[in-house]
């Protein structure tokens, strides 16, 4: 087993293994991010960072149902000034471990995306992930940036001009044609694509009180229920673009990591599975991945990445 090489090159950044802590999961404070890295993640992503601090919505903000999680956190975060300190502190501890940190950013205007990218770059995260795809902010910002190829490209442009760091743009599955958006952000200079954000939004009621169970009302669907949709999105995007894809959505087991790699993903984000299998999920999933590789005689991930896309279907 020690012969297996799980490492990944994501936009020029080396990850010791393909599992990435997804944005919004535990990524608020440096000590917790370091703990997740020590428990086996190949990279960690911060919670999405806005210019000003945000309280987020009232609770419940995230619940578990039989398909996974439903969340409307409201992008709560302490704002970029606080978060760059967390990133700096995290990076200091993560660099010796060889685990990169991805700073997730979001803003409510195209212009602000640039400003915050510049700000965050000061803290030297290894990558920037641009969250244009949160499904829970529609009422606030009137629409999701990732719903429109032109707007998505504009945001990408602006961020690229504001940083020298590699930039991932995070897309939404809640669009009629995700490939169109992927091509637009690639064309606009994105170094990679993160696909996907949570699905929906969805709505679950408490039928006794006739109220939505989330305080916000609707919420994004993640976890196992999202997986087949995410796999299809990643497959479609990988077929269409040349830049690497960080695949996120419902990944819970080593088998699910393999599935994402088979359709062409470079690395694989894990979020909701932390609720299902604990923060050990990264190490566990890597062990399961190694078992698959051993059974098939693969020594590294390139040996099978994209194999399913090679078979025409």
């Amino acid at each position: 087993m020690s012969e297996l090489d799980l490492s990944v090159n994501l936009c020029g950044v080396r990850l010791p293994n393909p599992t990435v802590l997804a944005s919004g999961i535990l990524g608020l404070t440096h000590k917790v991010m370091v703990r997740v890295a020590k428990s086996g993640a190949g990279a960690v992503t911060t919670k999405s960072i806005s210019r000003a601090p945000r309280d987020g919505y009232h609770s419940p903000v995230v619940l578990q149902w039989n398909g996974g999680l439903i969340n409307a956190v409201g992008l709560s975060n302490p704002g970029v000034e606080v978060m760059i300190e967390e990133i700096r502190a995290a990076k200091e501890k993560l660099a010796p471990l060889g685990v990169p940190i991805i700073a997730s950013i979001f803003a409510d205007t195209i212009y602000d995306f640039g400003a915050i990218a510049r700000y965050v770059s000061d803290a030297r995260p290894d990558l920037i992930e641009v969250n244009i795809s949160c499904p829970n902010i529609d009422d606030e910002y009137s629409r999701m940036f990732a719903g429109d190829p032109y707007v998505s490209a504009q945001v990408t442009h602006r961020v690229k001009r504001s940083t020298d760091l590699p930039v991932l743009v995070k897309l939404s599955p809640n669009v009629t044609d995700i490939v169109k958006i992927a091509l637009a952000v690639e064309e606009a200079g994105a170094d990679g694509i993160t696909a996907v954000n949570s699905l929906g939004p969805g709505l679950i009621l408490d039928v006794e009180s006739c109220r939505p169970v989330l305080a916000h009302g609707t919420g994004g669907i993640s976890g196992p229920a999202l997986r087949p949709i995410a796999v299809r999105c990643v497959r479609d995007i990988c077929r269409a673009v040349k830049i690497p894809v960080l695949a996120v959505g419902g990944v819970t087991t080593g088998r699910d990591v393999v599935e994402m790699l088979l359709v062409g993903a470079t690395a694989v984000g894990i979020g909701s599975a932390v609720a299902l299998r604990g923060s050990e999920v990264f190490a566990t999933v890597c062990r399961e991945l190694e078992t698959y590789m051993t059974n098939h005689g693969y020594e590294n991930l390139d040996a099978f990445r994209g194999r399913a896309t090679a078979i025409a279907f």
Partner: protein
Amino acid sequence: MTINFPRPARIRQITQESRLVRTFVLDTAMPGAEPGQFVMLWLPGVDEKPMSVAVPAPLTLTVTRIGPFSTALHQAREGTQVGVRGPYGHGFTLEPDRPALLVAGGCGVPPIYFLACRAVERGVSVTVALGAQRAGDMVYDDRFRDLGVELLLATDDGSLGHQGYVTDLAAQRARQFPQPPTIYACGPEPMLAALLRLCQQQGWAGQFSVERYIKCGFGICGQCALDGLLVCQDGPVLTVEQLARAQDFGRFSRSATGRRMPIR
């Protein structure tokens, strides 16, 4: 297994404990809950907040009126529908071989009562020290008396029991124990910080229930971070050793945004 989804329940009985404190008995139970564990209590259309289990069956919660959520809850009537999920977190672990000193202040009293009940059930004898600002704020004292445990009371103004801090009263009593005690405590963080120093000085063991801003309750959102610990999962009950390593303990908490805020 813990179900991370609010289960509908109704308030069956409401008791006024003191000016700001009410106890709510629900028509549901949290079987398997351990002393120190908490539930997320949902008021549909209002908010959802962590509340320590005071009695697991029927589920009983004691709530201090402090802000919008607790005020809305205090306005609830018998029959009002709520939701509960849990139990969550890591509770107290009774060490039967050492003298047990249970210390509580403010809204820390209910989980300590649950622990005292558990100790009595197991035949472990315990000493309980309760603190309040004045006599009228003291809650649960008769419940502890009914349990038949040794009970020490302290108020800031001396209107009930010892005048002064419950921590001093507890320290004084603990020094009389034949063996080094374990301190089980729940209450305001400055009180816990004082007890931590005491335990460190005396070499006593301690398990303290700590509060941090809780959103998810099941280790997903990272909001409850105390250094590298997640209070909703690793805590709320943490050991003296864990807390000694946590640089923020007694100094910084986190707001709903996740921003570090000085305590007091």
